[in-house]
């Protein structure tokens, strides 16, 4: 089967990429566009390591076919913040020492950033629900809660 042209916006850049019809969005990002921030942990939507923003919503990019992203807006961890210009969630994650092995972190950060975008002052329960789709095998969940709570305060502070 012939490759197809995927036209979509990735990290604010309009892009055209050749993808196989069976490529997942995660395959397209990692293998075709060289964006290796999103990770493949399980490939079956259980671990959340591949979480990206799809029109602002957090999704498991391993469960979406690349061509389903045609015309849509995709943001990966590479488009959220850079060292030196971190997103408030990333700042708080560094400050509280959240990353251990770090493999789940891109997914957790994307889930948390999407949560705060939709709900700037979440309760603890809402934060737990917001990152419920992300597994951390270093089991660093407590520090994640602390960091996201703090980032929520910082984000709210920036707005007012």
């Amino acid at each position: 089967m012939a490759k197809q042209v995927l036209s979509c916006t990735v990290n604010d850049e309009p892009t055209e990429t050749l993808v196989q019809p069976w490529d997942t969005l995660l395959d397209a990002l990692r293998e075709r566009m060289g964006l290796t921030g999103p990770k493949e942990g399980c490939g079956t939507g259980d671990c959340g390591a591949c979480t990206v923003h799809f029109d602002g919503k957090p999704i498991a990019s391993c469960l979406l076919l690349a061509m389903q992203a045609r015309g849509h807006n995709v943001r990966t961890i590479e488009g959220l913040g850079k060292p030196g210009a971190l997103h408030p969630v990333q700042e708080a994650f560094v400050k509280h020492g959240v990353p251990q092995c770090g493999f789940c972190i891109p997914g957790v950060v994307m889930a948390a950033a999407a949560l705060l975008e939709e709900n700037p002052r979440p309760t603890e329960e809402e934060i737990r629900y917001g990152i419920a789709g992300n597994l951390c095998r270093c089991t660093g969940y407590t520090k994640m809660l602390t960091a996201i709570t703090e980032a929520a305060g910082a984000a709210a502070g920036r707005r007012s």
Partner: protein
Amino acid sequence: MSTVMKTTRDVKGIGLSIPRPDGPDKVTGQVQYVADLSPRGLLHAKLLRSPHAHAKIVRIDVSKAKALPGVRANGITSRMFEMPVMNISMRSKPRPKPECGTVP
């Protein structure tokens, strides 16, 4: 680390919250894990699994695979089938090593 805490002697780091040096790289997805690397000349392996649950490997014909464009199956040798086979089934009694064949 330049911060020094005074006790009976100079102690570096103890009692302080030291941020991880790799923190910013990890929260921005910049850290390269093994699956993120693509060195020049990287080859991809394909695992051929037996269609039978318990059988003796008599022969593996790799000629068709080798004939495909771009396939570099030169690593396939009979030595691969002489390696000890690990028994991963959860049985209390040890089982004899499965019989192995060789590639002609």
